[in-house]
């Protein structure tokens, strides 16, 4: 190719590319996927399976369904879950039964792999969808999942 036809061809290819960007420049409002975070915080809906942090749901009687079987503690690859448990006497049967004292969750060590929730036989823990997990002090990342004074729901067995 000659010198001038080279330049002519070169400018042509640049214009072809610019036609693409120009098309989007004119139609900027159609199909834009930019999310105006954090202004859209109130309407931002995460997917229901999104793994933010592990939580333990409690019902209105302050009861959870964690039996203290420690399967989540065993499944965790990083040691993010620690369960402090004791044997208490069941008032109905009079037998000694395992019950959790504290279900400690270290969010700072968690890799959000989901093995603990998968391992839980009584669906006591589940994923919350919040993702704004930054804190000023790392001790705040250690959380006790069972609320104070809570106990295991009647009928939930290992």
């Amino acid at each position: 190719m000659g010198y001038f036809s080279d330049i002519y061809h070169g400018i042509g290819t640049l214009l072809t590319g610019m036609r693409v960007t120009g098309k989007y420049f004119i139609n900027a409002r159609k199909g834009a996927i930019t999310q105006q975070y954090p202004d859209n915080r109130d309407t931002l809906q995460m997917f229901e399976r999104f793994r933010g942090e592990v939580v333990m749901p409690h019902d209105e009687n302050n009861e959870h369904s964690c039996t203290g079987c420690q399967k989540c503690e065993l499944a965790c690859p990083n040691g993010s879950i620690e369960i402090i448990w004791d044997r208490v006497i069941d008032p109905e049967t009079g037998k000694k039964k395992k019950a959790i004292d504290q279900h400690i969750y270290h969010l700072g060590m968690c890799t959000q792999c989901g093995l603990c929730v998968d391992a839980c036989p009584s669906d006591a823990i589940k994923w919350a969808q919040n993702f704004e997990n930054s804190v000023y002090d790392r001790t705040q990342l250690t959380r006790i999942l069972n609320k104070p004074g809570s106990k295991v729901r009647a009928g939930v067995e290992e």
Partner: protein
Amino acid sequence: MGTATLEPTSIKKGFKSEEYFINMGPQHPATHGVLRLLLTIDGEIIKKVDPDLGYIHRSIEKMCESNSYQQIVHLTDRLDYLSSHINNEAVCLCVENALELEVPERVKVIRTILGELTRIASHTLWWGVMGMDVGAFSSYFYGFRDREMINDIFEETCGARLTMNYNIPGGLMQDIHPNFVKRVKEFIPHFRSKLPEYDRLLTGNIIFQKRTKGVGVLSKEDAINFGASGPVARASGYSCDVRKYHPYSALDKINFTEALDTTGDSFARYKVRIAEMWESLAIIEQLIDNIPEGDHKVATNAVIKLPKGEFYQKVETARGEFGVYIISTGTKNPYRVKFRSPGLSNLSLLNHIAVGGKIGDLVATMATIDIVVPDIDR
């Protein structure tokens, strides 16, 4: 008059050119992560490239030795994080083969679809970053725009955008989300209309072609000698697609052509990756309409113990051949785990193809080799 005027030619004559070192990285944006390249250069001409590794070594292989087989899977997310789903699949296939566990057809098909979506996501990101490396800024946004749709699919079904950890030995952690098929079917025509845009925007661009054509030429012999795999080897004419030669999951029933080129330069590697995106779309289209019904996993023991022996499984990630080698002594932890990562062998040929070129050419070559540093360092 005599010596009063100093002519430029005399300066050139008296100047003794010497080679010198220059560091590229470890935080140079064009090295795609914490990789340090020690360049020996003569002026602008590269004489030698020494990659210096180890900046993000996390001893993942050693960590595997103290983890159970279910727990290893999530560590492989952190190797080549752009093809994390395929890495997970490799470990799961290796464990399943060792246990002689037959997973349901449904699992195989879903794994293949997700693997190809991962490949497209990885290549779209590469395309955007590749454009940026050679000076085109728009491509970055266009690549990320299309990747966003795939990330939404992953987030809805797997629960995460990058470190999915969706495969478990024996199947999948959960069944696919009800919206999965709908979203994939929306994505395919969308991406089919956007891929020609990639060509118009970057492939035909005269500046881009001048930067990549004839740069970093790798011959077929060298590709084989250096153990290259993936698009890097296929651009040199070395047909090495693991999906073709050692099909795994549902790939044995799929018709697709392996993207090949013979030129071996940066532009050929670029074209191979673009062709691979078309092929991945074709593979997904063949599978998405007939996902078989059935369970999403088969039950395994809570504590998986592999039989005594050595097991190897290789898969084709977005960067090439990824292998998992497990030595088991029959306990619940592996005795030794070795990952064969495509990035390391592809990086090893960088010195060979970059010598003699300019620093700018090195950036274009690095971009088309498409290394992910956590995959190399592990």
